[in-house]
């Protein structure tokens, strides 16, 4: 049988047994529906997805952290490419469906692809509302809905201009905070007299406004936009009262409207959204609608929790469970702006039959409001301190009668039992049905059961198995407390290992925040990231100093008091407090002149030991500290510079003799080693960096156990990396093959730069590569040529500031205090 007929057999079989499910839209709701469907009925459907956005399914909720720079897009992907392959799903990226033919049972995309369906799921989400004022179509006017919007905002923010955000709701405030973090001058316009007037009373609205303004964002309330002005692109926003606000960027965040046009054209019943019954079917039983585009009992939704409930119902229906039905429940939401805590749940509109209990503490910036009806909590708003949110949300959902605890209700669960509880005890006191994760509708009982039955040990495991705190992440603290309560002392929060006892942040968070918050000195960083100690410790300070050196070349002033002694005095301290001195010998090459200078120095300064190192150079051991500048001056005179045998930086480039002398040599390995060392010397790296170049696979320079190694072959250069031969022993991985010496140098510099940007302090190349993945490294420096060039460019730039011989500087007088005592009392004492 030929290949072709084989394929044919398979597809006929497929049509006979499997139904075809087509999905329009690849947002959060259908993503969840498919997860549930594949769980309930694996292999039951051949799935095809059309997505107008040119990408995989991602967590839309997390766009704000991407905008503020706290997260990267890769970190918010829900289904990576592999997921589609694994489940045999065909995904048409960047393909908008323009027509549904219900008679022929097909959908057709703008690109002309027509696909038949047995069952269809419409999940087209919402469209942002655009106020049709004059100028609303100018370039520079954006909505806030998808990654393209965020990328356009980030691009606009690069020039650090002025942004006006129209709309002071959750989305508008998140956009404003993100743009501010990106360095823009931001003004928020809000139509009503106070911010979030639906949730907050005027006094609380002012608290929020003050917190927003404290971040340097201007807020104008009662602002009615009349027009957006500009020739080709936006230049200003004009208000009804004549105020003219200059603007390079305008964000409209005034609301959303279900995206139901396609369904309407297909003749389905549409009100505000696509009307569905409790089984999520539209007026055509083969067509379902899910997500923000769907309307149920006259109601549409704009938060993920109810959409995920819809998704579960659809999955049930598609898997053949006719009893799966949708019952909407109350929703809760939080403002995702770091440093501002706002939580609201349920119904908080004013009405005759309702009572309010309000707690206000303006000095501490706290506001709590609970709305009661018939002695039940139906709504709650918290500002400033939102820790009790989950408890109140639970009271709302259960409709508990609160008559008995009415007096102390507003003080939360800690007082409900009489005396105050610590947070862990408060979590322990929650009932099993209490909802912990609002986004994914996960209750306490489900989490504790998963922990005990599956033996889960940490936050990542709990996220993976229950989805709790896997969406917006605001319940992370609660989930961690639950793990603590359930596991007791067995819980060891390893999710993020803090850098040291001075902070809760891990190395990666700190590196990310240095960039996001533009931090350029250690004191600024400690202030902004709320360091717990006054000036750090011997663990964090050297790390921070490196991160700042690597992030801001030419801008950051090195803090020598945050360096280990070896890097401070550019020599290696010995056990008796003397030092060793190792000059560079480029690629292991030396000369009579250098050897003579070394011999002279050894005699002149009475240096007790001279030794060949394992790194192909010479070590002078036992030099007195005060002699160091004079020793260096003499070595400098013979043309030698520091070998940085002490540095978390480039150490040695070992070579073999190669084509110069060896009968097996294939390339000039010595020459390449010298070139590499001359190009890379002076650079600071997360941990020490050692290279080697061997002239043939016999590998006399031991290149295959180095951080970076080159094996010369007839056709060019095999580049290796991630070897180890110290505390651990590990052969290198092959990075790739290049034909020329220039390419080899470019790849090695790009690899070094990637390591400089991603490595954690004291993490050798092999550990870094293991953590981020050999393949991702390969992809970034070998396959993605543009990326490689950009990395290389950044490396070259930073070398401009790094290639200064520290010995010459100190021989000329820099840091003289290091090498001379403050005072000499031996004479005075003698005179006593």
């Amino acid at each position, binding site marked *: 049988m030929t290949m072709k007929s084989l394929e044919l057999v398979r597809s006929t079989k497929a049509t006979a047994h499997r139904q075809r499910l087509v999905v329009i839209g690849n947002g959060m709701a259908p993503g969840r529906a498919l997860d549930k469907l594949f769980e309930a009925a694996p292999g039951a459907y051949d799935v095809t997805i059309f997505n107008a956005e040119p990408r995989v399914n991602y967590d839309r909720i997390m766009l704000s952290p991407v905008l503020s720079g706290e997260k990267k897009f890769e970190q918010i992907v829900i289904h990576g490419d592999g997921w589609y392959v694994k489940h045999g799903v065909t995904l048409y990226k960047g393909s908008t469906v323009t027509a549904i033919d219900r008679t022929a049972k097909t959908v057709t995309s703008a690109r002309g692809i027509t696909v038949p369906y047995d069952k269809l799921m419409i999940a087209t989400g919402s469209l942002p509302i655009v106020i049709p004022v004059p100028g609303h179509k100018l370039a520079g006017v954006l909505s806030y809905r998808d990654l393209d919007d965020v990328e356009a905002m980030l691009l606009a923010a690069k020039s650090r201009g002025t942004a006006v955000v129209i709309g002071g709701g959750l989305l508008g405030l998140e956009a404003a905070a993100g743009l501010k973090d990106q360095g823009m001058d931001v003004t928020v316009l809000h139509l009503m007299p106070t911010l979030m007037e639906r949730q907050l009373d005027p006094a609380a609205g002012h608290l929020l406004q003050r917190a927003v303004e404290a971040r340097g964002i201007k807020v104008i309330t009662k602002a009615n936009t009349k027009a957006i002005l500009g020739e080709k692109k936006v230049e200003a926003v004009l208000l009804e009262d004549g105020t003219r606000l200059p603007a390079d960027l305008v964000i409209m965040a005034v609301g959303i409207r279900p995206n139901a046009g396609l369904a309407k054209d297909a003749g389905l019943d549409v009100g505000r959204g696509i009307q569905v019954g409790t089984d999520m079917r539209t007026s055509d039983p083969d067509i379902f609608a899910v997500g923000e585009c769907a309307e149920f009992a006259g109601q549409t939704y704009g938060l993920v929790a109810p959409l995920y409930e819809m998704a579960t119902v659809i999955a049930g229906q598609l898997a053949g469970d006719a009893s799966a039905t949708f019952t909407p429940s109350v929703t809760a939401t939080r403002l995702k702006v770091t440093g501002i805590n706002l939580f609201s749940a349920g119904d908080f509109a004013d009405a005759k039959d309702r009572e309010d209990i309000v707690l206000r503490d303006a000095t501490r910036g706290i506001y709590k409001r609970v709305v009661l009806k018939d002695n039940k909590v139906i709504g709650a708003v918290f500002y400033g301190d939102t820790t009790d949110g989950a408890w109140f949300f639970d009271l709302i959902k259960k409709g508990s009668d609160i008559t008995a605890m009415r007096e102390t209700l507003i003080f939360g669960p800690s007082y409900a039992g009489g005396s105050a509880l610590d947070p862990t005890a408060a979590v322990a006191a929650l009932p099993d049905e209490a909802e912990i994760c609002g986004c994914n509708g996960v209750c306490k009982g489900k989490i504790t059961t998963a922990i005990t039955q599956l033996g889960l040990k940490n936050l990542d495991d709990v996220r993976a198995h229950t989805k709790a705190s896997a969406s917006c992440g605001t319940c992370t603290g609660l989930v961690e407390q639950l793990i603590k309560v359930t596991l007791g002392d067995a819980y060891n929060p390893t999710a993020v290992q803090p850098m040291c006892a001075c902070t809760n942040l891990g190395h990666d968070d700190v590196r990310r925040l240095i960039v996001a918050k533009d931090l350029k000195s250690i004191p600024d960083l400690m202030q902004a990231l709320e360091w717990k*100690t*006054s*000036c*750090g*410790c*011997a663990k964090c*300070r*050297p790390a921070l100093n490196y991160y700042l050196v690597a992030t801001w070349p030419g801008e950051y002033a090195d803090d*020598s*008091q*945050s*360096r*280990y*002694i070896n890097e*401070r*005095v550019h020599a290696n*301290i010995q*056990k008796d*407090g003397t030092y060793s001195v190792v000059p560079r010998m480029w690629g292991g090459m030396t000369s009579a002149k250098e050897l003579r200078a070394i011999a002279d120095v050894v005699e002149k300064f009475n240096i007790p030991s001279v030794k060949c190192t394992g790194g192909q150079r010479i070590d002078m051991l036992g030099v007195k500290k005060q002699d160091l500048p004079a020793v260096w001056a003499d070595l400098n005179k013979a043309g030698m510079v520091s070998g940085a045998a002490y540095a978390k930086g480039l150490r040695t480039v070992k070579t073999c003799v190669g084509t110069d002398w060896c009968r097996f040599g294939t390339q000039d390995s010595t020459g390449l080693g010298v070139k590499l060392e001359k190009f890379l010397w002076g650079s600071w790296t997360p941990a020490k960096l050692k290279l080697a170049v061997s002239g043939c696979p016999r590998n006399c320079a031991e290149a295959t156990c180095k951080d970076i190694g080159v094996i010369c072959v007839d056709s060019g250069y095999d580049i290796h990396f991630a070897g180890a031969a110290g505390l651990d022993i590990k052969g290198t991985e092959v990075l790739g093959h290049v034909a020329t010496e220039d390419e080899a140098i470019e790849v090695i510099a790009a690899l070094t730069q990637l390591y400089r940007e991603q490595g954690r302090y004291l993490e050798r190349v092999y550990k870094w590569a293991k953590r981020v993945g050999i393949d991702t490294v390969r992809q970034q420096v070998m396959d993605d040529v543009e990326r490689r060039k950009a990395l290389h460019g950044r490396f070259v730039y930073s070398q401009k500031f790094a290639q200064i011989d520290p010995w010459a500087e100190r021989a000329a007088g820099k840091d003289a*205090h290091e090498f001379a*005592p*403050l*005072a*000499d*009392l*031996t004479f*005075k*004492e*003698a005179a*006593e």
Partner: protein
Amino acid sequence: MTAKAKWVDIGALDSIPVRGARVVKTRAGCIAVFRTAENEAFAIDDRCPHKQGPLSQGIVHGRAVTCPLHNWVISLETGAATGADKGQTKTYALKIEGGRLLLDAAEVAAGKVAA
């Protein structure tokens, strides 16, 4: 401490880097003089209670120094090793007056006798 203090000028506070140290040579060995981020100054023997590491070469943080040899953390106020480590280095009285550092030479001399 001996009965009568004898203060000698050992230099300006400003000649020590902030969060840094320098040494004063005496016949009984070096004394390390530290300057903290808050511009306080402390004088202690330049010898780690662990294996005599030169504390003046360590990293200064808060009112402590981390020894450059094996990372013990020594309190500048008491000279004692902190955390799980045990040991103590001798401290000396030190005053700052008008930006100058004054060390009690009588105590230094007594230390020498005791040593």
